[in-house]
């Protein structure tokens, strides 16, 4: 099948294989924007990103540019970043504070922080022509907006499930598992966004996040380097190396270890990969963390919270969350072959200071622009994209590993092994449903 021949999207996806056009074809990509990114809920930001009235951050929903902001009545809003007059981007910076009003840089139309028109110069030019209270003259709001435990989502469609229902237990787990680790049940964003461009389709990144076969291969060099340096560190200093070394050394766990992990596929493509990092050592920081949680929730609940062992939660199609390490990567598809990731991490409220060190170490070693981990991932993603863009050489991508062996129970799919390609099959089942709607 050539890229032009497909008629409907369902023909591109079978349970165990998908057509390369899903990754490389701009026509498919345009439809993904319309049918997935403009229909589902998309993560916009965290409430603590805009603590004060006038604070704003700009980001993307698909190719639409939006503003997350807070108004003087403390409400959080998601607005299109577009002046209704001539269409100008109103906020041209990544973030800032607009004081009492957004002001278009072109003709100084001013908007209240909820998007309503506030003022403009020489209003008399519109007298008797147009009613300045017309909603068409406001900064348009996202059709729907909802927040789950401080994490703000928006949908550009009036229709569809509410956020809680859409997230389901799988998606909600991402945020519950972050917030529950705080005795106050809350987290706070660290005001730093690393943005990294991938020269590859957005789905390649999401698939990689739950691909337990690749780490020992892709990250072999980094895992080895970290493990060797751990030994040198111990010899030279007589001390245990910082935990970040172990985060990196863990990438070269033997296949058997990866194979023993669980993956769980939920409706709408949300997918979980169970944890493998020993994040509950018996060091003083962990013990102090246990103590504050026990005081807040009791021993039994504390045990339940801290033994939750999830490495990745994908909130399809827009987020990869690592709750135990309090970080997330938001996925912003810019073209079939270009994806922006916005990478954030969080502090748990009310926990000992040392707990943050782990989160920060992971943010540095895995997620910063100097990462030795994603250096090799991004190289693979680009190589995949380039290969999938070829006309010849084959048409299909294989997701056959452990196909037909995934137990399904009440709409939730588990895997027989951690290395099963069940997560990819689960995401593409959701993709097919969205694209066929």
């Amino acid at each position, binding site marked *: 099948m050539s890229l032009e021949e497909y008629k409907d999207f369902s023909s591109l996806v079978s349970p165990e294989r998908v057509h390369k056009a899903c990754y490389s074809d701009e026509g498919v990509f345009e439809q993904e924007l319309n049918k997935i990114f403009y229909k589902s809920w998309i993560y916009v930001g965290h409430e603590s990103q805009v603590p004060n009235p006038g604070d704003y951050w700009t980001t993307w929903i698909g190719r639409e540019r939006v503003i997350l902001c807070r108004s003087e009545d403390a409400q959080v809003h998601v607005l299109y970043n577009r002046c209704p007059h001539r269409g100008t981007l109103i906020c041209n910076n990544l973030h800032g504070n607009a004081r009492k009003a957004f002001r278009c840089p072109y003709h100084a139309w001013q908007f209240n922080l909820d998007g309503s028109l506030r003022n403009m110069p020489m209003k008399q030019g519109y007298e008797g022509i147009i009613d300045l209270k017309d909603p068409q003259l406001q900064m348009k709001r996202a059709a729907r907006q909802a927040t789950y435990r401080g994490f703000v989502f928006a949908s550009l469609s009036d229709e569809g499930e509410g956020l809680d229902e859409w997230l389901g237990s799988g998606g909600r787990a991402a945020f519950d598992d972050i917030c529950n680790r705080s005795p106050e049940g809350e987290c706070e964003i660290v005001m*730093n966004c690393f943005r990294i461009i991938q020269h590859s389709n957005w789905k390649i990144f999401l698939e990689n996040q739950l691909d337990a076969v690749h780490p020992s291969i892709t990250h072999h060099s980094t895992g080895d*380097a970290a493990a060797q340096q751990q030994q*040198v560190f111990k010899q030279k200093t007589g001390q245990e190396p910082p935990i970040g070394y172990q985060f990196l050394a863990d990438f070269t766990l033997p296949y058997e270890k990866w194979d023993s992990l669980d993956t769980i596929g939920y409706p709408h493509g949300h997918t979980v990969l169970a944890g493998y990092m020993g994040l509950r050592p018996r060091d003083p920081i962990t013990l102090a963390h246990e103590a504050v949680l026990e005081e807040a929730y009791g021993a039994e609940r504390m045990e339940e919270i801290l033994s939750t062992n999830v490495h990745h939660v994908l909130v399809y199609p827009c987020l990869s969350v690592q709750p135990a390490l309090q970080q997330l990567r938001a996925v912003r598809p810019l073209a079939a072959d270009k994806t922006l990731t916005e990478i954030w991490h969080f502090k748990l409220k009310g926990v000992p200071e040392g707990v943050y060190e782990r989160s920060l170490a992971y943010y540095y070693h895995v997620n910063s622009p100097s990462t030795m981990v994603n250096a090799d991932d*991004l190289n693979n993603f680009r190589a995949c994209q380039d290969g999938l863009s070829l006309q010849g050489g084959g048409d299909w991508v294989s997701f056959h590993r452990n196909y037909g062996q995934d137990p399904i129970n009440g709409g939730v799919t588990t895997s027989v092994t951690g290395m099963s390609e069940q997560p990819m099959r689960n995401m593409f089942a959701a993709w097919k449903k969205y694209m066929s709607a």
Partner: protein
Amino acid sequence: MSKHNSLQVSDKTQREIENFLYLQAEVLDERRWEEWLDLFGEEGIYWMPASGEQETGEGQPNIFYEDYHLMSMRIRRVEHPYAHSQTAGHRTSHVVSNVMIQHEDESSGEVLVTSRFHMVEYRLDDQRYFGGKYTHQLRNSGSGYKIILQRVDLVNVEGPFDYVMQVWV
């Protein structure tokens, strides 16, 4: 840090410092990793903040914040035979200029020096450009200068990064 003209120092000191910075750029471009490590004092730190406003790298996000051990780890990784994103060739060329000595403490042998750099990097048929400011805190303990702290402020520090940085800039 001085916001005025750079300190008047002897031509000899100025030349020594300039030569040190040129050597560091050359060593980096030629991937002479052991010499690179040797330019740093035992407690030396290579630091690229995540924001120009950062006053310390401790306890907050950074783009690079590496001591001897983390730099050694990075060297092990780029020299590893399975570091596949290095196999396509990864070359850089640095130019360092505008070398201004901001402070000199003769009793401790410490010098604070700022400079500007331009760097091009080639990898996988692509060329990228980086530019910015170096701030070197150096100490001369008799046998030549060592880096106590090298701060690197990228011009595009808060911008989106097209790919990542595998080695120091």
